[in-house]
């Protein structure tokens, strides 16, 4: 019995004397001893702190103290400082008899051997059982105790299953030598000891509930570990994909082709891809024109020279409208959904582009001073563009309604016919985008007519800078700080957007 006492209370001549103090305290003595020795283990596990297992240990510790007065010898005689370290049942417990023998009495040591011998089907977990079963076997002369032991063994089986699973997934769990001086090695064994301790000493119903709860906690901890692993894997694969995409982009750019946002085949039509490529080139041109305008205004060029620059700017915009006409023929949805623009621009999108009346409104503040005639001209331009926009919007609304009616109507038999009709109606979308672009083009031309050369230069510079800022806003928005654990696709784009911000030449100077 003396040997068992040793196991229970940690008091032993052979064991370190300071263990004694731990066992006298309440379960919360767990904490001081817990953290330092187990950081290594935690890192190995790669998981967050497993409260499930901590709680188990605390509960078990509590039970253990209650059970001190019982005579059932359910603990191994291995005294360890870290009854506190009974957190990690997932580690397999290989029973090494020799160190055990040094710490425990010879009785249990031999009993252990016997137990191991007697259970040939054990895997490493059931080795953990062995001291306990040996102990219980020792005391199993009493039939009542035998019955109880059977129950404990049953409960232990239930508990072993989740811990087995835990063990299977925890990589790098090294075999544990019992009675070793390393704290982490001692961890699993006393835990299972104490598990059995509970079984032997407490009443059955309470025990089952507690055990179930502990098992559930373990499950939860396991699941969170799995989730974290999955997340890390996802991050890794995303990172690899990102580098691959960037490489592809570099390669494609150098070859003069732009593969579009998709990268992976088929989610962008060829017409859209071509347009995106042309648009990217156009944006670079836009920067160039903007720089020319700014330089021209600052260096006070003659009107003639400035006129050349302004005319080239107008031609630059004519070019994009022409490109959009071609793109509308091949992929009108790409234009109308604004997938070729940045998100902030898309927010203000009207029929596949900017809204002319909005532009005029923005400009009218910036364009002072104007002659009275010019003021009238700008005002009537705003009016007429608004009327034209309204007319086109109403026409498009009617198209929407007609499409809805076509798609919604039609029986099963008529299905194909109605689809054909719907397809026919969809072709009208191209006309609307075309007219909207026409409106934009005409508005810019009219501005060019109303304003003097100098005013026009300033006006076009304002326009370019405005859209440049809108594009920059999109980049900044995309790269704003977000929560760490949010795993979304956008995290891949963040890098590229940041690069965009850094590489784009944004002059946040005053307009003109």
């Amino acid at each position, binding site marked *: 019995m003396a040997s068992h006492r040793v196991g229970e209370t940690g008091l032993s001549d052979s064991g370190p004397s300071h263990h004694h103090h731990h066992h006298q305290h309440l379960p919360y003595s767990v904490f001081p001893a817990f953290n330092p020795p187990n950081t290594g283990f935690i890192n190995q596990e790669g998981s967050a702190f497993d409260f499930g297992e901590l709680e188990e240990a605390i509960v078990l510790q509590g039970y253990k103290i209650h059970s001190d007065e019982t005579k059932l010898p359910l603990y191994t005689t291995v005294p360890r400082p870290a009854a506190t370290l009974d957190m990690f049942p997932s580690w397999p417990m290989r029973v090494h008899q020799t160190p055990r023998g040094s710490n425990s009495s010879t009785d249990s040591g031999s009993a252990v051997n016997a137990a191991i011998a007697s259970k040939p089907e054990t895997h490493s977990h059931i080795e953990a059982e062995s001291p306990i079963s040996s102990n219980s076997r020792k005391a199993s002369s009493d039939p009542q105790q035998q019955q109880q032991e059977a129950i404990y063994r049953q409960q232990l089986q239930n508990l072993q299953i989740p811990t087995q699973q835990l063990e299977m997934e925890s990589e790098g769990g090294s075999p544990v030598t019992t009675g070793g001086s390393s704290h982490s090695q001692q961890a699993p064994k006393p835990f299972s000891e104490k598990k059995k301790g509970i079984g032997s000493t407490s009443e059955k119903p309470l025990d089952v509930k507690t055990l179930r709860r502990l098992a559930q906690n373990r499950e939860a901890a396991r699941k969170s570990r799995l989730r974290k692993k999955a997340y890390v894997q996802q991050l890794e694969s995303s990172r690899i994909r990102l580098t691959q995409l960037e490489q592809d982009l570099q390669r494609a750019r150098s070859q003069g082709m732009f593969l579009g946002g998709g990268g992976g085949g088929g989610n962008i039509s060829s017409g859209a891809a071509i347009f995106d490529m042309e648009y990217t080139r156009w944006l670079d041109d836009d920067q160039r024109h903007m720089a020319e305008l700014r330089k021209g205004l600052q260096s006070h060029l003659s009107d003639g020279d400035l006129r050349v620059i302004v005319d080239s700017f107008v031609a630059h915009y004519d070019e994009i409208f022409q490109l959009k006409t071609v793109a509308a023929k091949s992929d009108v949805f790409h234009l109308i959904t604004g997938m070729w623009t940045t998100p902030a621009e898309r927010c203000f999108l009207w029929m596949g582009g900017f809204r002319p009346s909005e532009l005029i409104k923005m400009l009218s503040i910036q364009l002072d001073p104007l002659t009275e005639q010019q003021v009238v001209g700008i005002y009537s331009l705003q009016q007429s*563009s608004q009327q034209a926009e309204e*007319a086109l919007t109403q*026409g498009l609304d009617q198209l929407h309604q007609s499409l809805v009616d076509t798609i919604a109507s039609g029986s099963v038999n008529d299905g194909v016919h109605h689809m054909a009709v719907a397809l026919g109606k969809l072709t009208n979308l191209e006309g*609307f985008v075309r*007219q909207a672009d026409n*409106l934009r083009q005409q508005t810019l*031309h*009219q501005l060019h007519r109303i304003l003097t050369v100098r005013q026009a230069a300033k006006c076009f510079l304002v326009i370019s800078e405005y859209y440049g800022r809108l594009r920059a806003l999109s980049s900044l928005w995309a790269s704003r700080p977000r929560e760490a654990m949010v795993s979304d696709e956008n995290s891949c784009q963040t890098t590229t957007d940041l690069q965009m911000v850094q590489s784009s030449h944004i002059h946040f100077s005053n307009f003109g």
Partner: protein
Amino acid sequence: MHYQQSESWATYMPTATSCQLLERIERLASENAVVIFSVSSCCMCHAIKRLFCGMGVNPTVYELDQEPFGKDMEKALMRLLGTSSPVPVVFVGGKLVGAMDRVMASHINGSLVPLLKEAGALWL
């Protein structure tokens, strides 16, 4: 091609010369200040109608899908304009303005309103 000399024959013979068609178009166009040739199901025609109504003009609209010789007139208009879609087409004061893009361009550059005023379609 059949040559129909009289109007009455035209009602029995469904075809008409392109000359006759154009004449018909011109005649219809000059009867009112603003004449729009449209097709009832066409959404762009709806847009152009809204444009004029929004300006306070009351246009005369001929729905070619409901007009006699409508189909032929559509073809004639297509040839006249050189575009793929015959409608909408706008005549102001008997003179051809054009299809939607021309109408919008003339509105933006400020030439449409004087034209309307001249034709008596707009007052103010």
